[in-house]
């Protein structure tokens, strides 16, 4: 073969090059008319995520409660992998939802831009940042039908964007302060019946809106948990035709107002009670409420839980009837708890980072029964939900997702992300724990409290003065370490 190029070779190469360019251009032109070219497939598992707002861990039978009836949660727990020490990476409702939907920690609340139309502004309470992908978007891009049913009013305020990625969404109106019905017809006398004398005016106004919103109620199925789970059941009937699907059922109950039908309250309170009902707690210390009223409030909350459990049960039965249990991954968790006077606090004051507020419920039911009845003490959290689901569906997680993939625990293995400790934040307060200690302080490290959670799991005996070096170590290594630097103060 000669080193030079003959005229014939040159012409042949030129012709081939031209033909190649033409083929490339023609392919691009033809291809650009079509969007689908890869076959759809992969895991055909449906995913249902049930979120129960404000459900305390110690109020569920599966976690050891003996006086509140939660038969459906307990039965589900027996079929599930149960996390014994789950915590939300941040509190309250919206920061926790952001973590669930994005797989990104909302805490330490950097670059926080509160929505202008929202009066409640704890740190991190804001829409999902636009540069963060949400789970539903990722699943939708994979051809999975995505749906959400919720009565969580905070998710559908005008400035919020929690419907991102969902093919269909059912926003059930009227919970709490949802500006759903004009409040004018609600008299003070009616508000008196569902508040107590110590309730602050803001809570009375909350109830004025709530009473206006719920004036239509006639039967139990008009309450919010029944409406959410009924709607979710109806969704199942339809979306079973479009499997695999993703369904989020986000129930605001058992969040206050705690006003379940009387039959539920009477399970836990005096059936002859005729006084004013403490349906809403002040978010403060408990000095505003009498011991008798507090007892009644506990009964109301317990009744709200049992009602929610009963309607969750109907939804689970619907799943069973539609034979969806056998090909659906079911994740159930709560976002935080509620204080009922345990540390002389009520509601969700920022500083009250004790078990009644921080300890949540988290269980995952595998469609093939893996891990059923097993327990894990891994510090599972809200931001683990998205990466776990994506992993189980064989879908690559977006790089932003920093939560742990919990799915190895189904196989009896440990997640890749080791957690010897855990941290969470609520407004300008932080909480950290490891196997031995639990610590609470402000974002600057002030007001520190330390507890031996091994011997004092209820966190009652403050050891901070005795062990300042432990407080210092936990704040520096855990809080500042996990936050990647000093915490913001807005």
């Amino acid at each position, binding site marked *: 073969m000669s080193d030079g190029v003959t005229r014939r070779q040159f012409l042949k190469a030129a012709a081939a090059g031209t033909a190649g360019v033409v*083929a490339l251009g023609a392919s691009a032109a033809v291809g650009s008319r079509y*969007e689908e070219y890869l076959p759809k497939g992969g895991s055909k598992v449906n995913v249902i995520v049930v979120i129960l707002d404000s459900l305390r861990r110690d109020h569920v039978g599966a976690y050891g409660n003996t006086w509140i009836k939660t038969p459906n949660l307990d039965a589900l727990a027996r079929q599930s992998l149960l996390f014994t020490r789950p915590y939300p990476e941040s509190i309250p409702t919206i920061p926790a939802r952001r973590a669930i939907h994005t797989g990104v920690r909302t805490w330490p609340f950097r670059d926080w831009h509160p929505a202008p139309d929202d009066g409640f502004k704890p740190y991190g309470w804001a829409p999902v940042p636009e540069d963060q992908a949400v789970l539903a978007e990722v699943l939708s891009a994979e051809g999975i039908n995505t749906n959400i049913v919720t009565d969580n009013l905070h998710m559908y305020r005008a400035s919020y964007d929690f419907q991102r990625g969902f093919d269909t969404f059912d926003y059930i109106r009227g919970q709490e302060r949802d500006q759903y019905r004009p409040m004018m017809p609600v008299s003070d006398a009616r508000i008196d019946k569902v508040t107590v004398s110590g309730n602050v005016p803001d809570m009375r106004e909350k109830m004025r809106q709530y009473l206006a919103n719920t004036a239509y109620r006639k039967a139990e199925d008009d309450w919010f948990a029944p409406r959410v789970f009924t709607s979710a059941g109806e969704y199942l009937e339809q979306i079973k035709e479009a499997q695999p699907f993703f369904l989020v059922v986000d129930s605001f109950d058992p969040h206050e107002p705690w006003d379940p039908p009387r039959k539920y309250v009477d399970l836990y309170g005096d059936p002859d009670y005729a006084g004013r009902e403490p349906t809403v707690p002040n978010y403060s210390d408990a000095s505003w409420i009498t011991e008798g009223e507090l007892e009644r409030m506990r009964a109301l909350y317990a009744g709200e839980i049992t009602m929610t459990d009963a309607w969750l049960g109907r939804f689970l039965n619907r799943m069973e009837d539609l034979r969806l249990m056998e090909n659906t991954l079911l994740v159930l968790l709560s976002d935080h708890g509620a204080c009922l006077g345990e540390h002389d606090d009520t509601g969700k004051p920022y500083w009250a980072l004790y078990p009644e507020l921080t300890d949540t419920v988290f269980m995952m039911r595998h469609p093939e029964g893996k891990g059923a009845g097993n327990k894990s003490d891994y510090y599972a959290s809200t931001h683990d939900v998205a990466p776990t689901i994506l992993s189980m569906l064989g879908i690559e997680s977006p790089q932003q997702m920093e939560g742990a993939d919990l799915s190895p625990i189904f196989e009896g293995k440990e997640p890749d992300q080791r957690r010897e400790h855990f941290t969470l934040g609520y407004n300008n307060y932080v909480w950290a724990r490891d196997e031995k200690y639990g610590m609470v302080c402000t974002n600057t490290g002030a007001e520190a409290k330390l507890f031996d959670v091994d011997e004092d799991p209820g966190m009652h005996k403050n050891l901070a003065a005795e062990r300042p070096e432990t407080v210092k170590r936990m704040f520096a290594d855990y809080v500042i370490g996990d936050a990647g630097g000093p915490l913001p103060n807005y």
Partner: protein
Amino acid sequence: MLRRLTSWAGALACVAGGVLWALSPIGVHLSEIKFQTPNLFWKLFPSAPLLLLVGLVGLRLLVPSRSGVTQKIGFWAAFLGLILVVAGSVGLYWLGIDDTYIMSAPAYRAFRLGLLLAAAGSILLAVGAGQDRTLPPWGALPFAVGALAGLISFAVDLDNLGAALWILFGVGWAWLGLSLVAAAIASLGAKTDTNPGV
């Protein structure tokens, strides 16, 4: 004679398989319009990688002794990849394996892995064949470009761009087949020139 027959069969299989492959986005589209599902098309799809397999084997039989390490690795990767694509699509659309193993989805995973292997192997095969001069540069280069396009489109779903790159993968294989046909015709001509009396 057998070798010549093999090379011709291989070349024609490459052309046919490549063209069928290139037509698949259109096939998906038509299947969705006519039957409201792409699955009917995907049931027919295994014929394309099967033809490419025949073409690949033909190419291998044609130039067994002259191929270097790169070409050998490329051949076996592409071979395994195409086998996986065929097995995966048959398992997925004919046998319904993934309907049973809903979590692990073995057929779909085999299909997708096979695509990647087939594309990566094709690139190595093209580079190796170019180096070993078992294919003319004007045959190997477009084949390599098509394989690279395929690798990109198989790795990530790129919608319209991906469909264009998918088509280019098929065009690359068809081009390879045409270059083999051209080479076979040229060799016939050369033999006629040197043995005019035969």
